[in-house]
C-alpha cells in the first residue's frame, strides 16, 4: 500500500508539473480563457463571440504569435448566463489551464467570477454583457462594449430630441433588462418625461401579446423596448401586427431580429455598438471578409468585440514581454493597460479605457428602413458612468 501511495504521489506530482504554468516566453503558448454561453437559449452569442475570438487568435498566430509565443483559446460554457456554471468554468480555467486572461460575457457570470479574478489576479475583458452593475466588480475587469447606461441614455436623449414626453416601456426580465429599466426610470424623468406604462416579459417568452396589448392602450408618445434577441424581433413583429403606430425605440437589433420582424421593423430606432467595415477601415474590412468567408454570415458587434478583445490581451502580453515579464498575471496586465490605456479599435480609430474600466466608444444611432435593413443615422456621445 505504501508503495502504491508513493507511486500515486509521484504520478500526481508529475501531472502537476505537466499542467503547471506554461512559460509563455519560451515559445510555447499563452492561453486565453473564454467564459461564453455556448449552450442553452443564448448559444447564439457564444457562437459568434467564439468565432470572432478564434479569428483573432488565428491571425495573430499566423503572423508568428507574440514574439514567437502562440496564443490558444480555451472556452468554458456558462450555459447562457448561469452564474454557477460561470464560476465552475472560471475555476477550471484557472486550476487546470493556469489562465491569466479571460474573455468574459454576460453580466451574471461575470459578476460571479469577479471576486475570483480579484483574488487570483486574472485579467478579464467583457465584450458582451452590458449591465452597469459590472463596473468596479474587480480591478482587473475591463469592458470593450459600451454598457447599458450608454445605450439607454443615448436612445432616451434621442427620444427627447424627437420632442417626446410620455414613454411606455417593455423590458425583458433578465439582469440586463432590469438594469436598463432602472436606468430609464431614473434618466427619463430627469429629462422631463413621464412613464405611462412599464411592462415586463420573460426571456424567450411564448406569449408577448399581453404586454403589447397594454402598451397599445397606454397613450404613450413612444415605446422604449429594453429587450434583446430573439425577443426584440418578436416585439417588433407583434407590435406592428397589433396596430401600434407610435415610434419604437430600443437598444438592440440583431440579424435574427431582422429575419423575424422583416418589414415590421421599419422605423425602429436603436443605439448600439457600431461595427461596420467602412472604406476607411481596412482592419474591419479584413475581419468582415474573413468572418463572412468562414461562416457565410456577417459578423455582428458581439463577434467584433471578442475579436477586438483578443487583440487587447495580445497587445498587453506584448508589452509584458517587452518589460521582461515572461508569464504576466492579471495584475501586471492591468498595470500595463493603465500605463497606456489607448488601443487600436476594429471599429475604427482608437478606443480609450476610462477609469471605470469601460472603453469609451461612440454609440451608433440607427434606424431600420422599409426593407428591414438598418441605416446608420449618426453617432451619439453619451455620458459615461463613473466620470
Amino acid at each position, binding site marked *: 500500500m505504501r508503495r502504491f501511495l508513493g507511486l500515486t504521489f509521484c504520478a500526481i506530482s508529475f501531472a502537476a508539473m505537466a499542467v503547471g504554468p506554461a512559460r509563455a516566453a519560451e515559445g510555447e503558448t499563452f492561453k486565453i480563457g473564454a467564459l461564453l454561453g455556448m449552450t442553452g437559449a443564448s448559444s*447564439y452569442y457564444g457562437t459568434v463571440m467564439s468565432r470572432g475570438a478564434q479569428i483573432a487568435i488565428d491571425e495573430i498566430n499566423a503572423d508568428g504569435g507574440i514574439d514567437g509565443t502562440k496564443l490558444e483559446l480555451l472556452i468554458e460554457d456558462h450555459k447562457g448566463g448561469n452564474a454557477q456554471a460561470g464560476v465552475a468554468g472560471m475555476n477550471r480555467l484557472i486550476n487546470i489551464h493556469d489562465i491569466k486572461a479571460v474573455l468574459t460575457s454576460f453580466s451574471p457570470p461575470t459578476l460571479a467570477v469577479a471576486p475570483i479574478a480579484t483574488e487570483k489576479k486574472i485579467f478579464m475583458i467583457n465584450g458582451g454583457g452590458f449591465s452597469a452593475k459590472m463596473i468596479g466588480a474587480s480591478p482587473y475587469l475591463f469592458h470593450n462594449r459600451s454598457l447599458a447606461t450608454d445605450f439607454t441614455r443615448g436612445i432616451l436623449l434621442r427620444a427627447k430630441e424627437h420632442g417626446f414626453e410620455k414613454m411606455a416601456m417593455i423590458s425583458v*426580465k433578465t439582469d440586463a433588462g432590469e438594469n436598463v429599466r432602472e436606468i430609464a426610470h431614473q434618466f427619463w424623468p430627469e429629462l422631463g418625461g413621464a412613464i405611462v406604462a412599464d411592462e415586463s416579459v420573460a426571456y424567450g417568452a*411564448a*406569449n408577448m401579446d399581453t404586454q403589447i396589448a397594454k402598451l397599445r392602450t397606454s397613450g404613450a408618445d413612444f415605446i422604449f423596448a429594453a429587450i434583446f434577441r430573439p425577443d426584440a*424581433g418578436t416585439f417588433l413583429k407583434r407590435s406592428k401586427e397589433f396596430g401600434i403606430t407610435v415610434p419604437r425605440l430600443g437598444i438592440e437589433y440583431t440579424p435574427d431580429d431582422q429575419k423575424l420582424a422583416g418589414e415590421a421593423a421599419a422605423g425602429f430606432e436603436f443605439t448600439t455598438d457600431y461595427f461596420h467595415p467602412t472604406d476607411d477601415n481596412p482592419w474591419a474590412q479584413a475581419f468582415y471578409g474573413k468572418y463572412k468567408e468562414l461562416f457565410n454570415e456577417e459578423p455582428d458587434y458581439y463577434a467584433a468585440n471578442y475579436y477586438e478583445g483578443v487583440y487587447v490581451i495580445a497587445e498587453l502580453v506584448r508589452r509584458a514581454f517587452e518589460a521582461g515579464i515572461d508569464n504576466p498575471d492579471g495584475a501586471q496586465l492591468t498595470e500595463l493597460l493603465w500605463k497606456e490605456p489607448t488601443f487600436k479599435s476594429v471599429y475604427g480609430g482608437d478606443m480609450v479605457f476610462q477609469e471605470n474600466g469601460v472603453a469609451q466608444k461612440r454609440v451608433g444611432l440607427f434606424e431600420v428602413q422599409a426593407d428591414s435593413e438598418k441605416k446608420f443615422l449618426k453617432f451619439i456621445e453619451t455620458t459615461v458612468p463613473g466620470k
Partner: protein
Amino acid sequence: MDLFLQLLLNGFVNGSHYALLGVGFGLIFGTTNIVHFAYGPVYAAGAYSAWTAAALLGFPLFLAGLTGVAAATVLGVASYLLLYRPFVRRDAPTFVVLIASLGLFILLENLIAILFGTDKKVVDGYSAGIHFIGPTFYTDIHIYQIASLMILGLALAAFLRLTNYGKAIQAMTDNADMARVIGIDTNKVSILVFAIGSAISAVPAVLILLRDGALPNMGFIAVFVAFLAVVVGGVGSILGAVLGGFLLGMVENVGMWQIPTEWQSTIAFIVLFFVLLVRPQGLFKGT
C-alpha cells in the same frame, strides 16, 4: 374595455395553443406514465423539419407542415422504442425514466443546435393576414391555432371513443396492469400514443414557426406549459388537458388586466400551487 377584450381574445388564442400542447403531452403521460420531457425537442424538431421542407426544399407550406408532423412522429416513436421501452421492460423506477427523458431533452436540443445553428429560422415570404373586430386584433395564425385545437381535439375524442385502439388507450390510461391482463398489447398502445402525441405537438410547433420563427430551445417553454396544463387539468384526462391549457392561457392574459405583467410567468405557478393544494388530482380528473 378595449384592453380587456383584447386580453380575452389573447387568452383564448394562447389557451388553444397550450391546450393542444397539453393534449399531446397528456396523451403520452396519461397512457404510459412516462414523463416525456423530450416532448419539447420533439416539438422543436417538428418546427425545424417543416422549416427545412419549406425554406430549403421549397415545399408548399401545407406539405412542409405535414413533413414536420411526420418527422415529429418518427422522432417520438423512436424515443419510445430506443430509450423508454428498454427501461419499461426492466421495470425501471419512474425517476430513472424521468432522468433518461431529461437526458434525451438535452441531447436532442443540442443536436438541433448543431445541425441547424442557433440563429432563428424563419419561413421567408410568409406573412399572416391581420384582422380587426372593432379595436380587437387577430391574425390568420390565431385562427389556425384555435381551429387546429378544435379539429384535432374532436378527431382525437372520436378516435378514443369509436375505435378499438382508442378504447385500448383508455383502458391502459385507467389501469395499465389490468389492460395487460385482459390481453391488450400495451407495447403497441404505447407506440401508438407516442406517435399520436408527437404528431399533435408538431401542429402548434409549425404554427409557432410561422408566427415567431424557430429556435433550438423553443421546446422548453412548450413542454413546460404542456406539463402545467396536464397537471392542472388532471393526468389522464384529455378534456382536463384542454381545460387546463385554456385556464393557463386566460390567467396569463386576462389575469394581467389590472396586474403588472412582471407577474405573468409567476402566475402560472400560483395557479399550479393553488390547484395542487385544493385538488391534487387536477381540476378535471374523473370528469
